[in-house]
């Protein structure tokens, strides 16, 4: 009988509580003892980075500023990221969050300019419906690409993987639910591709995301704002 992701989560939590184990234990046992966290930035400025650094943040999701003059877009983006790297040093890592706001051409130009910068990945550069443009982008650039924030059908991830479009899949945990997110991760694993699920806003799903991270082999990083971190990580908790 189909049930909603929320019903599924409630059931999983009830079952794991009854068994007196954390959810990650119920789902297959821990594969790691701490979870790497991606901290979203609002402005993406060095000042913001310096404010977040003492809270333990080491990996940052930087929103792309696509509104400025087109001819300066690439150089502005490179300059912003270089200023952030200068503020954080070699220990700072960045995701360029594009929110599907670029054209495939803009994405190609930015990716080419940033190859030596070592972004963790470039997130959702353009809408996934631009299949051919994205295929060209993925073949041209060595910058890892992340996709999936706007994917609604789980089977669509197979197309992304088959076409080699993503190095990171970003299924929405509240949208797909725990088991389907883990199934998407299992599919990605056979392509040597990582997952960085989206947790959404509610506390229940934010907690669930850390549980899924704890037991999923090809999990890479969890985007979460406002949690205290230790050198970029949050420890996995032992209590149910």
């Amino acid at each position, binding site marked *: 009988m189909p049930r909603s992701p929320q019903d599924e989560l409630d059931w999983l939590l009830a079952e794991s509580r009854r068994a007196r184990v954390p959810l990650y234990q119920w789902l297959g046992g821990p594969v790691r003892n701490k979870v790497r966290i991606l901290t979203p930035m609002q402005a993406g400025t060095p000042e913001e980075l310096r404010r977040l650094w003492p809270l333990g943040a080491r990996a940052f999701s930087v929103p792309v500023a696509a509104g400025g003059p087109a001819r300066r877009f690439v150089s502005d983006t490179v300059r912003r990221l270089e200023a952030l790297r200068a503020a954080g040093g070699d220990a700072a890592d960045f995701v360029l969050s594009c929110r599907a706001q670029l054209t495939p051409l803009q994405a190609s130009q930015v990716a080419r300019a940033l*190859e030596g910068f070592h972004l963790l990945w470039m997130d959702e550069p353009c809408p996934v419906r631009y299949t051919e443009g994205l295929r060209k982008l993925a073949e041209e650039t060595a910058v890892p690409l992340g996709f999936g924030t706007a994917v609604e059908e789980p089977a669509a991830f197979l197309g992304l993987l088959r076409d080699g479009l993503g190095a*990171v899949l970003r299924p929405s945990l509240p949208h797909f639910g725990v088991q389907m997110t883990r199934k998407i991760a299992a599919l990605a694993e056979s392509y040597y591709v990582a997952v960085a699920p989206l947790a959404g806003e509610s506390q229940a799903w934010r907690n669930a995301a850390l549980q899924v991270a704890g037991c999923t082999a090809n999990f890479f990083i969890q985007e979460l704002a406002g949690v205290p971190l230790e050198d970029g990580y949050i420890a996995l908790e032992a209590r149910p």
Partner: protein
Amino acid sequence: MKRRMFLTAASAPPLLAQAGPAGARPVGAQAFDGLGSKLRITAVKVFGVSISRESDRPYVFVKLETNEGLAGWGEATLEGKAGAVMACVEDFREFLIGADPMQVEHHWQSMYVHSFYRAGPVMGSAISGIDQALWDLRGKALGVPVHQVLGGALDSRGVRGYYHARAATRAELEKLRETAVRDGVSCFKTGIPGYYEWIDSHAKVKRAVAHLTMIREALGPDIDIAVDFHAKTSPAVASVLVRELEPLHLLFIEEPCPPENVEAMRRIARRTTTPIATGERLVAHYGVREIIERGVADILQTDINHTGGITALWKIGAMAELGGLSLAPHACEGPIGGIATLHVDSALPNFLVQEICGGVEPGPAEKIWEEWLGFPAMRMVAGRFPLPQKPGLGFELPDEALKRYPFNGTRPMARVFHSDGSVAAW
């Protein structure tokens, strides 16, 4: 009795066919009555050999004995799985006792096809050891070295090889270059530092590139450098690295990602002009077909101890030749497989370079090999492995020589982890 005479009496009744219950023969053998030789396999012996207590790769040697006193040796060493391979060789006993060892291809087909499940490293290694021993017998019976039966050596100077660069600092690397120039060694292999996650950080990528740049600078432009990623990088991380390493003009980059996903490796390969090498974990010629036909890699590295012995390695060499690829076979086990590989290498026009997991200075293992075989096995002279010239694989090995190194059980290979405790590839 001359060796060649074993083969001349094909019309005589098979020796063991008349020998009662002890003279069992493999199923299907009677179809070749009157066609084969008089040689019959009378014993299959498996030796587990631990040259140190902690070794994760005790050697597995296979010895086939015959009714005419000839014996053939092969190697079935499978790192971390010695016990399984020894058991698998035992499982093939019924395929071999009473069989005519000259029918190498027939036995290979029977072991592979009649095992139904095909491929797999345990079975591949067991077949490899038996196949090498069959070829050793074949060469000995014919009175020629194995490379002669494979079409003849193409270069009388021997087989070009490489050692592993066991040097970490610039000073050590510069000393290594001096030794290499002195000894005529023209190529080394090294790895990338650390373990890698699915996506990896700026700091780790930067460190890897700096490390390899330092190695190129210290070894200079005239020594070939191969870099083994050892499949510890994902396609995402490998893509970044291969792009940045292009200016170092490496001889090849090995296993930029694990081998199960051919398309993933193809995408990495398309991001660089550096040749890509892969195949040490692949079994049989079936295992490399997709890599060849889709242009995934430039160099194949199938291992004679896992891929199915001389028979399979030669077929892979032939397929690679037709596909425009070269061969640089993996060898990181014992001396028998290494020597067997040299015979195949020498007869392949598309052979590039032969590995041996040794340093430019011989270590304890190489000394033991010399003690067993009576010559410095798998040690290069002027940058090349001398080609064995005696019949068969080209050595004699008394069983007693191995008794000093009894089997100490299977030991697992290295198990390494990331800082969060999750499993890392090495």
